[in-house]
């Protein structure tokens, strides 16, 4: 399945894009997405282990299953306030 991942903050700056398209087998998990992002986008570099993944408006754990129609976002730890 082809997934569109929105990027924010330094992840967006390092990737040089607001979205990244990722190809994953059906029944992949967030952990699989992390591995693919790291391989496909090495410029994320030091951020990679700390990136947060959101599906819809909720944070996802590594075990969360992905679906092709999910709204997926990827970003570093937050610093609002």
């Amino acid at each position: 399945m082809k997934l569109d991942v929105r990027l924010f903050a330094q992840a967006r700056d390092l990737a040089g894009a607001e979205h990244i398209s990722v190809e994953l087998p059906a029944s992949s998990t967030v952990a699989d997405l992390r591995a693919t992002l790291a391989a496909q986008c090495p410029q994320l570099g030091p951020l990679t282990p700390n990136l947060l993944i959101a599906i819809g408006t909720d944070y996802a754990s590594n075990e969360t299953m992905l679906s092709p129609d999910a709204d997926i976002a990827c970003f570093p730890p937050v610093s609002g306030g």
Partner: protein
Amino acid sequence: MIELTRDTIDYTALTESVRSDQAGAVVLFLGTVREMTAGRQTAALDYDAYPEMALAKLAELETEARDRWPIIEVAMIHRIGHLELGEVSVAVAVSTPHRPDAFEAARHLIDRLKEIVPIWKKENFTDGTTEWVHPGIEPESGETGKLATD
């Protein structure tokens, strides 16, 4: 009332919006752009947000706080975009019948906002360098990512 805005935060109007005859206490918290962070001088901050999720998380925080304290009204507004030194980046206003609850709820809301709401700040230092603040990640300059607001 929950909002993200690119405009100057009218914290007087925000405070008025939570006032009520049922409240004996109103607490307002403002986060403002601070000049000095770990010995470095900040000229401005740029805030980025994932708006849909930020609004959803703020709404969750409101629900969480209303379950815990007898809140009459609550208002939270966060600025995004470019903020100069001294400007207000975030405002949280809470009204409750008695003051301990208003202080506790406001403290809880701003603390949780900083933990879970997908908003990020980028430092613009007076030496011309910029740096995203991502807690737990060392900036490339080697400086620890301390926050340039409260």
